[in-house]
Every structure is written in C-alpha cells, then in structure tokens.
C-alpha cells in the first residue's frame, strides 16, 4: 500500500501515533507534524474567579497541556493527475483529509470534528497543532480582521508587565484568516490560513495551535446561562473546515503568496449547477 504522498515538493505520511508527518527537502529542509489534541474544559461553581467554568465567553482548560487522542483509526492515500489525498481517521469523531493539488504550493488540511464525545461528563476543546523545526523565539503573528499582522509574544503584553493567571488561555489570540511564525536565523516562515475565525496560539517555539471545535457542559456565568453545548440532529454539532499551510523563505514573494492564498480562501468562487439533461454539449455551447 502507498505510504507517502505530496507531489514532488513534500513527503507526507502518518506515524504510528496518528500524526501527519511532512518532510520537505525542496523547502529548505522544513519538517512539520500535524496532530489533533484536546483540552479538558474547567468546571467550577463560578463563585470565585479561580472556580470559573470554561464556556461561551471564556476558554479555560483545567489542564496546562493539551492531551493526545488515542489513535484507533487508519489512513489511505489516493493519487491522481490533479490531487493527492491522505484520508486519515483518528477515532469515531476526529478525521481529516490532507490534500496537495498539482501545481499548488500549499498543503490543505480539511478537518472533520464531532459529535464530540462527552459520555465521560467532561467538556472538551479540540485543537489542531502544527509542530515544526523552526526557532520562533517565543514570537508569532496573528492577523487583525484579515488585514495587518500583529506581533504576539508568549507570556507577554506590549504595554504592561504581565502576571499570567492562565498559562494556556492567556496566550490565545483571535485569528480571522492567518497565524504565522518565522525563524529569524534561518529566514524561514510558516503560515496557517483559516477558512473562519478561530482562537490560536504558539505555546512552544516552532509550534502553532488553532482551536477548531468546543463542547462544554457548564455555563460560565457571564450571562448567557447556557453551557456551550450545541447539538444538531439530536447529537453534538459536527464541524468541518479547512486550513491551508504554506511555508518557505521569509521573503516578499512568500508574503505575496500568503496574501493571495488568504484571499483565495476567503473569496472563493460561487458554484452554480444547472441540470442540462436533454441539452447536448453543442446546443449548450
């Protein structure tokens, strides 16, 4: 069976723990893994700050590190003239398709999460984590409403001395279309482009994580008086979305490439279908 995909730019496969592993000799030797993980949502009586629950208004994990999923799934690779695809199933409710299109210098992660299992009565906040060999020195960049990129520094604020109460949530920032980081020494850059607004952070050097779905079981007492526990068809909500990962040397053409890809993701063509059962091609033409 085929174990690698990625056209002539990337070597993409899956390791025994279900992480997607990507090597790219054509890209200055950047190595990256992608994995889904989750945080357990904090649950408290909301009487005092330290007992706040995680909910619609606040992200408050009750662990300081994200937790790996047990990989009980499998993967298959499909190759063809236009696209190579890796179909990866992690478990009953976490799966994704990794795509590399012919002639496109990007990797597409089409993730599918849900219904999030809460039979253990624990709310969960699902992230996807991209881990690379870049030395990002505690810095990363997030966009501001699809426009300028704002520099972020782990455990710091630009205008006051921060005493961080929440080591994870305190480092999460809003991402509308893009989160990126760079290796100043090797002059390399990696950007993750999102198809919707998400929370994102870089909690370790060389790492970027984005929160893709949440299901919590207790209201966080900020006013809505409902747990963030959205359902559809009688079960937990299923979310499907897309990340595009691009990386390369930290140059102007790379930034232009980043901008074009972000526009492409945000402003896609509208597709219309017209049944023409009894109209031949020549008549239609």
């Amino acid at each position, binding site marked *: 069976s085929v174990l690698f995909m990625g056209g002539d730019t990337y070597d993409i496969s899956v390791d025994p723990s279900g992480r997607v592993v990507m090597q790219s000799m054509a890209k200055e030797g950047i190595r990256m893994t992608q994995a889904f993980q989750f945080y357990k949502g904090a649950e408290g009586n909301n009487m005092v700050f330290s007992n706040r629950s995680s909910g619609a208004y606040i992200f408050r994990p009750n662990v300081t590190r994200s937790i790996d999923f047990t990989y009980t799934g499998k993967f298959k690779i499909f190759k063809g003239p236009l696209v190579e695809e890796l*179909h990866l199933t992690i478990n009953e409710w976490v799966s994704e398709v990794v795509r590399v299109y012919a002639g496109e210098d990007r990797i597409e992660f089409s993730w*599918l999460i849900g219904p999030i299992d809460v039979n253990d009565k624990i709310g969960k906040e699902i992230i996807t984590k991209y881990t690379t060999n870049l030395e990002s020195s505690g810095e990363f960049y997030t966009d501001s409403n699809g426009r300028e990129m704002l520099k972020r520094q782990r455990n710091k604020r630009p205008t006051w001395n921060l005493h961080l109460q929440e080591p994870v949530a305190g480092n999460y920032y809003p991402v509308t279309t893009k989160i990126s980081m760079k290796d100043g020494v090797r002059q390399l850059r990696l950007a993750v482009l999102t198809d919707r607004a998400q929370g994102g952070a870089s909690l370790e050097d060389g790492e970027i994580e984005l929160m893709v779905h949440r299901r919590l079981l207790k209201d966080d007492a900020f006013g809505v008086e409902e747990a963030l526990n959205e359902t559809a068809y009688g079960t937990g909500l299923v979310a499907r979305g897309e990340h595009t990962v691009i990386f390369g040397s930290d140059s102007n053409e790379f930034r232009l490439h980043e901008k074009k890809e972000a526009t492409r993701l945000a402003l896609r063509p509208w597709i219309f*279908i017209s049944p023409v059962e009894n109209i031949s091609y020549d008549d239609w033409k």
Partner: protein
Amino acid sequence: NKKINKFREAMGIMQHHDAVTGTEKQHVANDYSRILSNSMRDGNELCSDNLRNMMKKKENSDSVEFHSCLQLNISSCEHTENNKNFVVTLYNPASQSLSTYVRVPVKGASYSVKDYLGKELVTQLVPIPASVSKIPGRQSLAVHDLIFLAREIPALGYQSYYVSEKTQEEEIQSDEPIEENQ
C-alpha cells in the same frame, strides 16, 4: 433590492457582539442561521437571474436553472448526483482572475468535463471519506468527488463547464490519454 436588503438586515443584526462571538442563547444562534440561510437562498436567486441575463441566447435562457449547493463542504449536492449531464458555472467575486480546483459530489464512475471552447479537461475521481458519509443529517448518495481545474475565471466574471457522465462504451473507447492542457 428587496432580496439584497435581507442580507443587509442580517449583517446589521449580526454586528452584535453575541453574533460575532457566539455568546447568544442557542435558540438565538439557530435564528441567526435561519436568517443567513434565507439570505443565501435569495442571493442565489439574484445571481441566477443575473447569470441568465448575461447568457447570450435569450430565447432559451429562461429555461436554465442555476442551483447553489450549500453543502459542497460535506460532499452533498442533489443536482450533481441526480443528473447525468449538468453545467458547472463558477462566479468569481474577486477583482483578479482566478484558477481553482472544483470538487463536486457524483454517483457515477466516469465523467467528461468540457470548457466553452470544447476542450476536454483532465478530471479525477476521489472517494468520499467514510467519516464524511456518516455526518448526521447528510443525505447524499454520492460516492466520489469529481475534481477538475477551472482556469482563469475572469475577475468579477464567470466561467461554465459542461459535465457529462460517460456511458460504459464511451469509457472503453476513451481510454486514450486526454491531451494535457497546455
């Protein structure tokens, strides 16, 4: 304008911080979805009317319907699954021309895709993952995504492709390699 106003009202309502962040009650969130999906439906009718007006041959353009499939992201579209011949029209909202890969869910085993010049495009069929097939509420019989490359869709313009399912004999005859589009 009436149809566009619905979109305007929807965007007006959803300036509220609850709509932006998702801190509204569940039934309010459901109502936002209802308002947006009604607006998308009206927007689809508006675009269809405009596309029909842009078509050259007036006499038969009234008969052509343009349908949006809002669940293409979970590979579900009744119009591509239940018709052997259909036209895919792409409207490019960006101010630069755009080339993009198109994916539509289909039931058949082999398809031909032609552009408006009659050139047959390279296509590829990829199986729809099992995890997508079992999404609650997804009603689709499609087993593959049909993929082709739409080149150079004009800025703020559209491009159409004629898709037809190949019969068994056609499939056998056409096993010569399709000339690669330069």
